[in-house]
């Protein structure tokens, strides 16, 4: 799961390294269009539907927080 998520992130913004331990939002590595793409790609990849109310800073600011969100949605 971790590897796939990193791949998806790098596909959206190839100029950044998302495997690093950094706050994506504060580092401005993703903009609003990226986030829309990211959510769509994650939903497609893992066959889940992410609740709009879960699209918040805390769930997308790092690789770990994204992985936790996926786990919360039943992805193993």
């Amino acid at each position, binding site marked *: 799961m971790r590897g796939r998520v990193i791949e998806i992130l790098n596909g959206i913004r*190839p*100029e950044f390294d998302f495997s690093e331990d950094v706050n994506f*939002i504060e580092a401005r590595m993703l*903009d*609003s*269009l990226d986030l829309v793409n990211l959510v769509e790609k994650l939903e497609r990849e893992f066959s889940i539907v992410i609740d*709009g109310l879960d699209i918040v*800073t805390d769930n997308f600011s790092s690789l770990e927080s994204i992985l936790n969100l996926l786990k919360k949605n039943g992805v193993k």
Partner: protein
Amino acid sequence: MNINLIEMFEESVAKNPQKIAVIDKDRSITFSALRQQAMLLAQKIIDTVGCQNKPIAVFLDKSIECVYSDLGILYSGNFYMNLDIYTPTERIGNILKLVEPCFIISSSKQIQSIANVIPAHTNVILLDDETQAVTFDDTVILSRISKMIDTDPSCIINTSGSTGTPKGVVLNHRSFFDFTDWAIDTFKFGDDLVMGSLSPAVFDIYSFELCMIMAKSATLVVLPAHKAMFPAEILNLLEQYKVNFIFWVPTIMVNIANRNLLASFKLESLKTIWFAGEVFPTKQFNYWHHHLPHVTFANLYGPIEITLDCTYYIIDKDIPDEEPLPIGRPCRNTDIIILDSENRAVTKPNIEGELCVRGTSLAMGYYNNPEKTALAFVQNPLNKSYPELIYRTGDMVCYNEEGLIMFKGRKDNIIKHMGYRTDLGEIEHVIINTLKLVKNGCVVYNHANKEITLFYEAEQELSVPDFRKKIGQALPKYMIPAVYHHLDLLQRNTNGKIDRMYYKNMVNG
């Protein structure tokens, strides 16, 4: 009689000194304190170099400081030019070189990133610096302004230009009065406006919000820029601050509709929603309309080259998903002329022509750019008797059966991407001529996927990360192509030029 916007602000402060003018995260400022800060800055500007009717740049995050900087610049008898702190340094440098502002207002933190591109002889004022004025003489300040005229500029707004340097559109006080009066009259805005402000300070939407602060003692709630990515958080803030007016670009509203977020937020305080800058797909608009039946919705249209907007449409009935929203009718005191390819006025429905604007709303021109100004602001071809300008927008439109104006498309290479007006030619120019990354290329826009796409000829294929990194040093993020196609040879026309239509059609199926 209205001459200078700041006169409205003086009245608002006198009426509501203790009212909150700006809320910025956990800080807020009253009208009287805002006036104080603005006056102090004006005094500092006057004491340093008593310039008048000159551009003054502001390089700050959208904040309380940005608001009082803009007001302070107006108090000093000059006009403001807000700059985007997230735009690459080189691009800021190009703007500064062209406009040569008298001052740059910034902070010690922000100034670092542009220190190398500030032209010599530019005065710099850092707001967190100790050498600020500690007193001001408002009688002197106001008396200086009283000698100004309504066609003096109030601000410069920069817009994408095909030569790689943005064009600085000069807007005057009179045109803002004109629009603001129309807005207040038409929408019956009272003194209780609470505006949920998402617009970057470089957009014209923010300039309108500033006018409402000045004209109607409106409260501006700064919605943090990065939160636009997280619409649920923005909607939470709208409820928290009981925002009753929003003027947004449709992109985020489409996102909110697609995620069904209005099912979780009642937004009972919202009374008026304006949107402009892009086409709002009717399906997602209807979602908003159905969820917020108590709100007045208006679609506004207007290029940067006319102050704010020139047409509007209040949606007061159901429009089927498949039908586009009209851009409506001219705002009062604005004349819209649709010109066909022979420069004749179109008056019948369903005949396409270019939308041209006539009247007070027209910008004064592009700052320090007489050639581009002369190309865009031209003599009204329908008037052979005296000098009269129109602005040719490059937007193709037609009347529908009801006489409402419908947007049909662009004449040229300008697109709206994430709400930003972007000249694809500018992206090409930078990639090919400025950065010299490719031998030749063509940038087109895939509307369905919202992807800026580059087709290019080069000795070797460049990696996408490489492209993005290099281009990101010259262009803002929203202008960096998302998709890259390396070709041996670009398709050409019979006249040898790159066949742009071919690639445009290719990506748009």
